[in-house]
């Protein structure tokens, strides 16, 4: 060991150089790929730990959206008598909830990544991105199960006939919708998680912000029922076109417009970019502030 540094030593093939800053967009995706097993193990951990020692286990995946739907049917459908575009209430609300739940859960879960895992992050290095990624994936699995539930209900009404459901070829867009939604919540979640390491206030904001945002998204009402100045407000919400397109594709009623969808896509790209930059900045030294 030597305590002097020979500055004339020629450049060598270093595997890694630890420096104060990295390039702005260097996500270290190669690193994430190397840790792909870890992502899947995190997903598995999420599932196993959530439903261990519960009697009903994974059945809870169905109970949550079903009970929510029934509540909405009673409150918004029968008491408040909100329009459902002439669709059966059950399938109308369930379609909105299935989509919205994925977005809301992914966003709220990713937004606390740094805070929730501070102890672990403070002790060992692994690409921090694996954590939000695993959340996106495990919520995707959850979504798939709930989507299955939706399909069952949907098929029931479709086969029963006379329910005003007219599915069309836009169903093929479903994977795109899910992807856009997943990436949007990932981007937003990364921004919030990075910012909450310093400004805890944001966590408070987000908790009820997501709840409020649901009312600005056509989950419990169809977009067609909104007119006037509020319509623009709701169209400005990038989730609107996703929920509406989903509903239009499966149920045949709703507002579908390529430009609305393009707006959501553009929004997602920007958010993902910004999220990446901020997350990248913060992950290197958040342990000092959290």
């Amino acid at each position, binding site marked *: *060991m030597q305590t002097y540094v020979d500055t004339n030593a020629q450049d060598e093939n*270093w595997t890694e150089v630890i420096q*104060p800053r990295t390039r702005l967009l260097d996500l270290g995706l190669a690193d994430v790929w190397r840790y792909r*097993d*870890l992502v899947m193990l995190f997903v598995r951990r999420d599932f196993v730990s959530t439903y261990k020692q519960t009697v009903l286990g994974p059945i809870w995946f169905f109970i949550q959206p079903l009970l929510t739907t029934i509540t909405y049917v009673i409150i918004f459908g029968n008491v408040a008598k909100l329009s459902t575009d002439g669709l059966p209430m059950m399938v109308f609300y369930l379609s909105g909830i299935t989509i919205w739940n994925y977005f809301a859960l992914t966003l709220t879960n990713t937004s606390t990544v740094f805070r929730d895992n501070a102890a*672990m992050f403070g002790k*060992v290095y692994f690409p921090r991105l694996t954590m939000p990624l695993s959340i996106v994936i495990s919520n995707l699995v959850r979504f798939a199960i709930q989507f299955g539930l939706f399909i069952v209900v949907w098929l029931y009404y479709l086969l029963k006939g006379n329910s005003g459901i007219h599915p069309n070829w836009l169903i093929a867009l479903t994977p795109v919708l899910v992807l856009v939604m997943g990436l949007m919540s990932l981007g937003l979640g990364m921004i919030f998680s990075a910012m909450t390491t310093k400004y805890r206030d944001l966590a408070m904001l987000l908790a009820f912000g997501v709840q409020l945002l649901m009312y600005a998204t056509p989950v419990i009402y169809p977009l067609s029922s909104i007119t006037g100045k509020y319509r623009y407000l709701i169209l400005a919400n990038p989730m609107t076109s996703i929920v509406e397109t989903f509903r239009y594709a499966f149920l045949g009623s709703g507002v579908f417009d390529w430009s609305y969808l393009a707006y959501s896509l553009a929004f997602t790209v920007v958010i993902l970019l910004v999220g990446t930059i901020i997350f990248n900045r913060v992950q*290197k030294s958040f342990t000092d502030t959290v």
Partner: protein
Amino acid sequence: MSDIAIKVEGLSKLYRLGEVGTGTMSQDLNRWWAGVRGKEDPFAKIGETNDRTSKGSSDFVWSLKDVNFEVKQGEVLGIIGRNGAGKSTLLKILSKITAPTTGSIKVKGRIASLLEVGTGFHPELTGRENIFLNGAILGMSKTEIRSKFDEIVDFSGVERYIDTPVKRYSSGMYVRLAFAVSAFLEPEILIVDEVLAVGDAEFQKKCLGRMKDVSRNDGRTILFVSHSMAAVKNICTTGLLMKNGQVSFGGTADEAVDYYIANFLNFNSDVKIQLTDENRSYDLSRLIEYQTIEFANPVENNLYSTEDDITLVVRLKSKVSREDFRLAFSICKMDESAVGAFFSEETLSIMKGQEKEFSITIKNHQLAKGQYYFDLSVGVGNELTGITDYDIVTKTLFFEIAYKDILKTQMITLWHSEWGSVNFKNVELKAV
């Protein structure tokens, strides 16, 4: 110079002291604006060197300042220094947990760090599931873990409970399993914090042995941070001494430890000590606490002979009334390893708010020539029943043992350190 595994150049780390979170927005904006214009961080300049004993005038402190060193491949580097010297910060930067403020570290080979065992263990998951999860967190692939799975289970010795959730494990089993996963990591460079200070003695020995094997047989580079001078001497080939965020000495492990002992653990011949926080490394209740400790019959330079009795007078102050507490002391060598300890009967009494003195006389101490110091504790329970301490004070009074006089019919006047620290006196030898 192609055999260098780690090269640290001009490494510094700036920390902000005090409350982080509120009122920093304007400062953040200032820093950001400076960054945008390509100027230096405006707050970096007011930092000072890291000396936790003196209160600095600014809120920013250099936890590391301009650290340079190199580690060769296959070297086992021991990093030593007092609390707050910057060891942990250095480790954190090396493990990529936090980024340096300036400078760089160039690394050849994959790094794995063990700042803690069992990171990411989930209580609800079984031992088997946790092995995979923990292994993956430490950077192993699934196939890698699978191929070592049997060895890991074997090493941990918890085979029977491998499919039980770890929340049902005893803390010992938990640590064993956690360490076992770490022990089978095979990176080119391994960074180890004092995780070895856990588990029972037998297991500790196993762990130290494993570390030695890894470095000798596989030629891996290890960085080992420890407070235990004995462990550093035992395991490491080279040593790095940190002081106030800077490298104060670098050399072989033995040299570094000796330098530390000579320069930091100052032998002093005070005969009375007023205890301060400097003497307390544990945050205990201090229901009963030490106030002063002094030698009752002071001798010159605290130099006692092998024949002398040593008497201490300790002054205690209590916040509670107790009739069943005990005192304990241990005598340590200058390399911080203990020579022996004593626990009194649990029959001492003190009243609430009272200050009371006790005298402790060590007769026939049997200590060999050398320099020693006293650590003391007060509490309940002893080495047999389990210990609860109210207060522990370390490095209190120092003393030296020497053979008094060559004419005093001493058989041995020179004591070799390899003979140990005890010179047995109560030995009977006769022909039978």
